[in-house]
């Protein structure tokens, strides 16, 4: 991060006195403006884009430019007449004449952005120049734009704050796309800024031009193109607002290069709301009362909680509600940590690789409370066999999640936390409790299912390392308190099954898109957000190679990650499906010519360890965890034939699980 002394303005945050002084000192114009004053809008495009005549005029006569200048002049005189409101010292009440690039950085700062994950290129060079001249917003230089998006995503998942990304036009934008789609599928708040070619070149197949708005449209919550520097600050503010409220999601802002050079006054916009966007917060009290009445009569209640509980910071409300009910609680892959895994009421993850007891409880429950979960096909299996005996209550912030895959009896459209708080109050208000005898009988049944010990594996093996053993040991040594990021495959499922998350935002993985390559860059974002925490990336030898270049980023920023590579020399998850459903024809799932990961780690400036005996596992993990200030790459040579159990084959019901004990499948 070495750089020369700052040459431009040093922005002093909040309180305008010193800020004006600093800027005046370097000769910046400082125009006071009423916070609500808006520039008159220039010509606006309709839904079909700019009319051809406008484009032509703009490009060949510059007529539009004249209009813009006149508009600006009018606005300036207007602003000056408004006068400066004395004594009003909140953020954003002074207007400064800044370039788009400077406004960009200022806006990030005023938005409270700590880290910007990015990679430079032609279209964003003005912005990079503005970044160079300040210290407040820390830029993290990745090695591939996919890494930037995943790192911002890891930052967001582990903090609840939006992750922020800056990439250049064309290949910068397309490289970031996988990361944007990953965040979209898991409803993660990201704001991604893509550079764009200069406005007058758009549509000409200009150098490094790609229709970023078009290609990102199906995998963003919303996107914006900035067409006028005077709109930049407000669009940025709206982007953060949309990304972080309601059901969160990534928002892309496409900024043509010329916009970042144009100058205008800057005020931090106070009001980011959009008339067309009004996320719901609180649910219908009637529906909540009905839900309480139904729940309190349940004989075999079940709570199925998903990523919405984590996203909505509703773990405390969920925990309190479940404990009051005395009901079993299961989490989806995305919901892990939303309910403490060590609580006796927790029956483990459900779904394709969920526990026997969780899936059987789903199958046999009579009232199901679903919270912040979207009835994904990996969870429900065959919809015709899904929860055949249950009356379903669904709490979700997104109306479109309700009745999407499964019909429900009572829908509560609300923030998970608020809905559960009110639901608990309504339950207490009924004056009744759940039928004790029925609940006891229900738990006896569940405990019988538990006794099957569906996560059993060959613990005693002294010859080959069982991947589950590595994860159990990692859990024990970190006392369950580490941040665990994961890639995609068998190792991901084992991490979900064997690391017991008692707190939310500790389990960071790509569930919806299932993006191999996610784990390492995501861990970068997590470690930056939690510099003193233990951050381990559980990965496989195939996944890790999809973003391996980020080891270099880890070196640059001294990130002491622990990489737990469960190296089975197979794309294990693919191999498992081929074993079960393709008569063991292992078509292209074996990885030949693997690198020596120890040397690879060393060449990036990190430490590497190769472990191939079970009795070395604990010592190696201890050694690595003890290295507080350096990244250690642990290459565990694991059993090649191990499969993930239990397993529900695609299209089967929850009661049709295959356990490790009946190895035969299909």
């Amino acid at each position, binding site marked *: 991060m070495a750089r020369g002394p700052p040459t431009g303005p040093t922005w002093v945050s909040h309180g305008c006195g010193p800020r004006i002084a600093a800027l005046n000192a370097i000769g910046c114009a400082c125009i006071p403006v009423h916070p609500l004053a808006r520039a008159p809008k220039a010509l*606006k*495009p*309709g*839904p*079909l*884009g*700019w009319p051809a005549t406008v484009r032509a005029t703009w490009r060949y006569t510059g007529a539009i430019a004249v209009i813009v200048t006149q508009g600006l002049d009018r606005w300036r005189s207007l602003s000056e007449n408004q006068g400066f409101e004395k004594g009003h010292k909140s953020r954003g009440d002074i207007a400064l004449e800044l370039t788009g690039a400077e406004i960009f950085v200022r806006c990030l700062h005023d938005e409270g952005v700590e880290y910007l994950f990015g990679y430079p290129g032609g279209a964003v060079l003005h912005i990079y120049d503005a970044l160079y001249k300040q210290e407040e917003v820390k830029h993290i230089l990745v090695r591939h734009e996919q890494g930037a998006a995943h790192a911002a995503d890891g930052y967001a998942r582990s903090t609840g704050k939006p992750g922020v990304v800056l990439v250049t036009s064309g290949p910068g934008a397309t490289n970031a796309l996988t990361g944007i789609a990953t965040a979209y599928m898991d409803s993660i708040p990201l704001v991604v800024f893509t550079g764009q070619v200069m406005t007058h070149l758009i549509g000409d197949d200009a150098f490094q031009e790609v229709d970023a*708005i*078009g290609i990102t*449209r*199906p995998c963003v*919550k*919303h*996107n914006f*193109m900035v067409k006028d520097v005077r709109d930049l600050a407000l669009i940025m503010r709206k982007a953060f607002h*949309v990304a972080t409220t309601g059901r969160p999601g990534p928002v892309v802002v496409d900024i043509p290069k010329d916009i970042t050079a144009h100058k205008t006054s800057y005020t931090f916009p106070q009001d980011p709301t*959009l*008339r*067309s*966007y009004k996320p719901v917060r609180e649910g219908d009290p009637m529906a909540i009362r009905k839900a309480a009445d139904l729940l309190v009569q349940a004989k075999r209640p079940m709570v199925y909680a998903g990523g919405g509980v984590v996203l909505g910071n509703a773990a405390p409300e969920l925990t309190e509600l479940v404990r009051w009910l005395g009901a079993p609680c299961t989490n989806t892959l995305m919901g892990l940590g939303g309910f403490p895994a060590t609580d006796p009421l927790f029956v483990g993850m459900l779904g394709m690789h969920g526990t026997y007891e969780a899936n059987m409880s789903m199958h046999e429950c009579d009232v199901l409370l679903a919270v912040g979960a979207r009835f994904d096909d990996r969870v429900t299996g065959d919809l015709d066999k899904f929860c055949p005996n249950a009356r379903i209550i669904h709490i979700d912030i*997104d*109306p*479109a999640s*309700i*009745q*999407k895959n499964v*019909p429900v009896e009572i829908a509560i459209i609300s923030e998970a936390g608020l809905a559960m708080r009110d639901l608990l109050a309504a339950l207490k208000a009924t004056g009744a409790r759940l039928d004790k005898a029925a609940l006891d009988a229900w738990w006896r049944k569940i405990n019988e299912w538990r006794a099957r010990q569906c996560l059993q594996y060959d613990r005693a093996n002294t010859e080959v390392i069982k991947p589950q053993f590595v994860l159990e040991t990692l859990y024990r040594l970190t006392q369950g308190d580490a941040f665990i990021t994961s890639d995609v495959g068998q190792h991901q499922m084992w991490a979900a099954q064997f690391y017991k998350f008692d707190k939310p935002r500790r389990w960071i993985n790509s569930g919806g898109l299932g993006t191999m390559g996610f784990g390492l860059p995501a861990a970068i974002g997590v470690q930056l957000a939690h510099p003193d925490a233990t951050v381990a990336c559980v990965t496989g030898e195939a996944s890790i190679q999809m973003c391996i270049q980020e080891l270099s980023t880890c070196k640059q920023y001294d990130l002491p990650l622990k990489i737990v590579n469960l190296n089975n020399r197979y794309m294990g998850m693919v191999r498992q499906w081929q074993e079960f459903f393709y008569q063991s024809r292992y078509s292209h799932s074996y990885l030949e010519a693997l690198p020596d990961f120890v040397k690879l780690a060393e060449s990036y400036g990190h430490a590497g360890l190769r472990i191939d005996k079970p009795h070395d596992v604990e010592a190696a993990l201890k050694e690595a965890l003890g290295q507080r200030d350096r990244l250690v790459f642990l290459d565990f040579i694991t059993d090649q034939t191990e499969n993930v159990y239990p397993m529900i084959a695609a299209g089967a019901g929850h009661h049709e699980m295959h356990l490790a004990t009946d190895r035969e499948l299909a």
Partner: protein
Amino acid sequence: MRHIISILLENEAGALSRVAGLFSARGYNIASLTVAPTEDPSLSRMTLVTSGSEAVVDQIRKQLNKLVDVVKLVDLTDNERIEREMLLIKVCAEGDERDEIKRLSDIFRGRIIDVTDRAYTIELTGDGRKLDAFIAVLQSRRILEVVRSGVIGIARGGSACVPDAP
């Protein structure tokens, strides 16, 4: 079932492609779609005709409402409504045919808006069925060109599809 949905949309570049993209990405049917600015130049009014089971149409409404550019959505199917579509049709009209086609056009309350010695261009407004019927009647002649605007609709009575008060 057929549904006719009215949408107020931000009059922004890209808003239309968001709606169109939603339908293709999620595999929803789209029978017709029309859009034009309203008296408020910042808003466009779209009328969309789609079909599907109640569950699918429920999802369509929710997914449309979820688009950040959608300011207001009303399913006109639930209301007493007026539907209109415009047809411009160019037919060969020579010799005896000319009177006959003119008569047919009058019966349907069409207007001949362009005339050459070989062809008429007729404008006709009504609901979809009426336009279908007129085209069917002219089918035996030589139709040169058919242009339909797609359906627009409005609810009867005093209620209006306008943005909610802030």
